[in-house]
């Protein structure tokens, strides 16, 4: 799942590189042509890179336009629709942004949806027991971070492939969730409605999102953590031989992702105070789609972008709403909507990957 295997890249540029090798210190012309060649190659790389980075934004723009056009033409209440847009994307965006720390390292966590549910349930139970908002928040974050760290430590200590570890985690958490529900001796964990409504406001959501995303952007772009994660994602061996501790980095990454899940779970409780074993069932895959939609390279590495989750999350919400308006309640509409989603998804990914092709097929 290495997006561009180092070896392949070198293969592709092998011969030209060879012929460019002997810039003997004195042979000026040669040196020049070498520089030129590399300049050319580099600027080409830059161009395609730029385009690839823009692709998700283009997608976002197209979708936004489509949304406005379709919305207005079918008399949609746009202001409400806009608010809805935020409501529906903010949780995904938060969790996915945290998850980018995991994916940047080339790791893959499929259990995020399940841990969101468990964290939300614990938070709900805690609130019902204590009636405190802050304890509930704390419980959500704590639970999520702990579950996340369990996967991380399992994988790190026994050096298991993270993905499969999280596959196991997925079903463990599922079992935990149904156990938690059983404690209430009922179908669901219910948090007091009026309490939830009181805090289920745009302000709360935007504040939580802003704070967490700011933190992530800072850590990812302005501290060592983000850099070493991209390094690991790009080439784990090199990272190790450059003195990066895989285990510690992994644990840090999963910690942050856990924090994101915790906050997401917190908002989930506020948004839907009735939690069942099926709650948050879509989140796990949706954050994946959101990230990729936003231009995240699923196998991580230098091209990881912390903003991918935001772009992708909003794009998806836009798309879903547009489709909902257009296919209002026609039989099989959901199916068509999903097929359209698939095509757009593939189109965006294809553009985002353009300019990073290799001779052999990507893996």
């Amino acid at each position, binding site marked *: 799942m*290495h997006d561009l295997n180092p070896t392949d890249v070198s293969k592709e540029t092998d011969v030209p590189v060879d012929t460019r090798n002997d810039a003997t210190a004195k042979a000026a012309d040669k040196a020049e042509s070498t520089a030129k060649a590399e300049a050319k190659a580099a600027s080409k790389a830059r161009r395609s890179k730029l385009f690839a980075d823009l692709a998700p934004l283009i997608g976002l723009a197209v979708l936004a336009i489509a949304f406005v056009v379709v919305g207005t033409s079918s008399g949609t209440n746009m202001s409400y629709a806009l608010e809805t847009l935020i409501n529906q994307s903010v949780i995904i965006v938060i969790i996915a942004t945290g998850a980018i720390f995991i994916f940047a390292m080339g790791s893959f966590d499929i259990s995020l949806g399940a841990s969101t549910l468990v964290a939300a349930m614990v938070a709900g139970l805690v609130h019902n027991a204590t009636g405190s908002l802050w304890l509930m928040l704390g419980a959500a974050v704590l639970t999520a971070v702990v579950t996340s760290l369990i996967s991380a430590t399992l994988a790190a200590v026994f*050096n298991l492939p993270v993905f499969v570890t999280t596959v196991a985690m997925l*079903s463990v958490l599922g079992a935990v969730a149904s156990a938690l529900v059983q404690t209430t001796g009922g179908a669901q964990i219910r948090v007091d409605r009026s309490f939830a409504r009181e805090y289920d406001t745009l302000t709360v959501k935007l504040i939580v999102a802003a704070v967490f995303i700011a933190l992530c952007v800072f850590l990812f772009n302005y501290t060592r953590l983000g850099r070493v994660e991209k390094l690991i994602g790009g080439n784990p061996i090199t990272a190790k031989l450059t003195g990066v501790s895989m285990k510690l980095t992994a644990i840090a990454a999963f910690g942050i992702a856990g924090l994101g899940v915790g906050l997401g779970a917190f908002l989930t409780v506020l948004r839907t105070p009735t939690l069942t074993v099926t709650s948050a069932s879509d989140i796990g895959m949706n954050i*994946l789609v959101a990230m990729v939609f936003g231009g995240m390279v699923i196998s991580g590495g230098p091209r990881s972008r912390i903003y991918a989750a935001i772009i992708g999350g909003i794009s998806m919400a836009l798309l879903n709403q547009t489709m909902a308006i257009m296919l209002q309640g026609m039989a*099989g509409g*959901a199916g068509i909507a999903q097929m359209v*989603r698939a095509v757009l998804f593939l189109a965006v990914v294809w553009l985002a990957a353009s300019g990073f092709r290799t001779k*052999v097929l*990507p*893996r």
Partner: protein
Amino acid sequence: MGSFMQRTTGTLIIPVGVFAVVWALAAIDGASLFSSGDSLLILARTTAVTMLTTMALAINLNSGRFDFSLGAMALASSTIGAHIAITYGGGFPAMAAITLVAGALLGAFSGFLYTTLRISPLVSSLGVTLLYEGFAFTITGGANISFTQYPELVSFGKSLTAMIAVIIVALFAVYMVFDRSRFGSDYRSLITGQSAAVSAGVKEKGNAIRTYAVSGALMGMVGLIQASSKGLIEAGSINFSTIGIMFTAFLPMFVGGYIGRFSNDKLGYLLGALSMSVIGLGYSALRMTSAEQSLITALLLVAFLIFLSNEERVTRWWRRMKAGKGAAPSEPTSLESVGAGAR
């Protein structure tokens, strides 16, 4: 290679061990694994389904290609098959044939998308999953396909002989295709020597598409069996609700990879699937809730992974000595490659 004894032991220790343990547990609980007359049928049927799924997953994962769309292919192909068979008649033969062909085509298309778009296979499989789920949904408008009025279409999944036949034929076919055929040796050369093989003139794109097609056909068979054992097809499953089946294939896949070191990984997938099915019977004999079941299965998976990775550590030296199986064709299913395939 190891002696015949070692190989036999290595091959059989897991299935036999599992059976012994489960049987003992059931006995302690005063229950029997084969309480009802259908137990054997169920054993065969679930073994078949798990084995086919495991193979479908493994043949691509060996090449570092992760495929979320397995369940979607099973769903879409069986929906197509059933829909046509019910609308235009033709009975079970038609339904079976169409389902398998549809599966192969869906697989090939998935491979075509991946090789043409040249994006990460995992990502393209996400798109394909959405596409095929949506497709199946659109065919029936989201309604389940029920066979209550067409019992003849679902007799197949109730026949023990049919299920055993499926297992044998599939096993033989997959073995011939991947271990003995020209396609197979190209396929295996691409696994560990992608660039070298390509520069030696192996057609990677075509090989990949064919592999996906095989995987699709296998899942088509899965869809067929499930349709006939459930008596309905839940064509309304969307939003990735089909990916679950893939997760059931991991443990048997690792078991298969382990067994493959001693004999052949394909045989390993069968034995792995068999072990899982026996455990399944055990769950029901011990009357466990589905929560308990998923918990235990998960713990088994982790435990086995831990065993594998540490066994790798401990026996590294030993394995170097008997370098024979060091990088045998079956090896890629061991942890490293899944690490690479799905870190």
